[in-house]
């Protein structure tokens, strides 16, 4: 069968559209639609039962209520700290996997990083509870070793939340780092060494610039996951966690104030977008390049 170029172009477009359809439907139904609805929700108040009118009340509440504002900043700062800690811990791990371990050992190490993810996040968080609670394993060990006189409560501190967040996020940092370090030619490191560089100069001038897209990608993913995490801060931080996602949960489920919850949701979205944009600007990367190269 012969067809004109115009027909063939049309056919190609049809195929492309059909292939993209599931992804587009998914994006539209689960991301775009709910967000449009949330946006509408967040910009209205109930004036009387079943009567609503547009307003900025929810956003005003956020900015005038110090507690909300405090939790918002605290969540952002702790997430950034957790991201930085994850990077510092994951980098040597990725380095060992790609540059130090050989063959099977390297694959094995990677699997070891992956294994905790076979268990659900809830169970893993409960594992931390068993380890850290006052009558748990670690406090008992500290007493036995004579470091503390009585068992101390290790739960419900900011450090506990950070530990849990870092633990949960580690793999999402290791994977992009491994893939970007894998593509680093060892001879570049040797060449730098040969030209007189020491370990620090090699890391600063060769390794980090090469791994920058992987570092950025990992940080974006970890930061977003951490910022939006609900389970780990709630379980490990208890009443003290003061995580922004908890506020959203409370507004939607406990207070049944969907309008306020929607506004908080949008503020969180704005926060993560701003922080990611800031991070990209600071590290001189472009989002598309980062996502492509990692």
């Amino acid at each position, binding site marked *: 069968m012969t067809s004109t170029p115009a027909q063939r172009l049309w056919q190609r477009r049809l195929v492309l559209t059909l292939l993209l359809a599931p992804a587009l439907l998914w994006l539209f139904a689960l991301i775009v639609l709910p967000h449009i609805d949330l946006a509408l929700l967040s910009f209205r108040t109930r004036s009387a039962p079943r009567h609503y009118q547009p307003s900025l009340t929810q956003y005003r509440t956020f900015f005038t209520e110090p507690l909300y504002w405090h939790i918002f900043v605290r969540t952002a700062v702790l997430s950034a700290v957790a991201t930085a800690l994850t990077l510092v811990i994951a980098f040597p791990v990725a380095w060992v996997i790609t540059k130090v371990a050989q063959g099977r050992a390297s694959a094995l190490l990677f699997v070891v990083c992956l294994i905790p993810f076979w268990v659900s996040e809830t169970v893993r968080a409960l594992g931390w509870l068993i380890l850290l609670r006052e009558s748990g394993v670690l406090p008992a060990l500290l007493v036995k070793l004579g470091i503390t006189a009585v068992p101390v409560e290790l739960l419900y501190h900011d450090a506990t939340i950070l530990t849990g967040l870092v633990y949960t996020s580690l793999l999402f940092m290791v994977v992009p780092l491994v893939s970007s370090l894998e593509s680093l030619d060892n001879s570049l490191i*040797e*060449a730098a060494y*040969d030209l007189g560089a020491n370990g620090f100069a090699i890391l600063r001038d060769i390794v980090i610039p090469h791994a920058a897209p992987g570092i950025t990608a990992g940080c974006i993913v970890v930061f977003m996951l951490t910022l939006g995490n609900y389970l780990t801060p709630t379980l490990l931080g208890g009443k003290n966690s003061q995580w922004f996602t908890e506020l959203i949960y409370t507004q939607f489920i406990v207070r049944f104030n969907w309008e306020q919850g929607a506004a908080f949701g949008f503020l969180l979205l704005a926060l993560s977008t701003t922080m990611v944009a800031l991070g990209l600007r600071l590290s001189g990367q472009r989002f598309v390049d980062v996502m492509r190269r990692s």
Partner: protein
Amino acid sequence: MTTPDLEVASLAKRFADYRAVDDLSFTVERGSFFSILGPSGCGKTTLLRMIAGFIAPDSGDIRIGGKSMQAVAPNRRPVNMVFQQLALFPMMSVGENVAFGLARRGMPKEERGRRAAAMLERVSLGGAVHKRVDELSGGQRQRVAIARSLVLEPTLLLLDEPLGALDLKLREHMKIELKQLQAAFGTTFVYITHDQSEALVLSDHVAVMNRGRFEQRGTPQDLYYEPATAFVAGFVGANNRIAGRVVGNSGDIAEVATAQGWHVHARKSGAVALGAAVEAFVRPEVAALERDAALLPKEHPQHVGIVQSLLFDGANSAVLLTEEVSRFEFRVALPQTGRFADLKVGERVYFSFDPGRAICFATADQVPS
């Protein structure tokens, strides 16, 4: 006498049961171009990496400029290396690449920028300072890699098959350029390669390496005309290898018979006893070819061959013959006059060679193959 730039004394390195470098001693004079030629796996890369400091030797010593390099890290050795894949830093500009080593020495930014630019000028890349590495051609990258090392004024420049990744035409061109660069800078070059043509064209001295040892050291001419071992004869330049047994001796010429009964004559290298297994080597350009037996020199033994295939390669054209009696494959270089341009496959021709220019070696414990 000046101190040699490189002295290697009883150097050895084993990997498990494998002797990569086996009790090696040699010196390289200041300002010379020294090549180590050998097949892959002969230990030449291990040797080079020990000189650079990336591998610690098991025993022996390396002295560079008279100083022992034991316990001196690669970044503190007066040695720089041009890597096989060049290893230019893609995250830096060409100028930054060249200035990298200077920066590591704590040279101020302006000074090192000036020096890097001057060095790039010397390798005819003056305009490339601000270019990205991937904007350069293969040959230009090569020059940047060399400039990056030479700007540090090393006592010794190590080159690890730097032409290996280039295509043939560029490789030929870079050979000449490397030789000119070395002459211009006067730096001592230690060059490793498996390409005998590179080693012969570039070097003042070549060491042929095999199984962790040097088979022979000498000028390219020595290696080509006076190979010390069968390995060198077989590895350097094209050669017809004829394995057989000695059936006659007259002066320094031995008569060698192959298992199929072909008799050839070749000069003996070292002691070759009657009845000993030997390998004779005849270079393709040593043999003369004629259609008429009477035109061949009378004083050399004559052989008859059937043209099996014509290997046209311009000035390097050759013809592959099978010797009539033994069906032995023998390669003869064609004269560049084009006199045998009309040679046909299956034609019967005569050939001979001067036994004095052929050479045979006793194959100690090896079965002739």
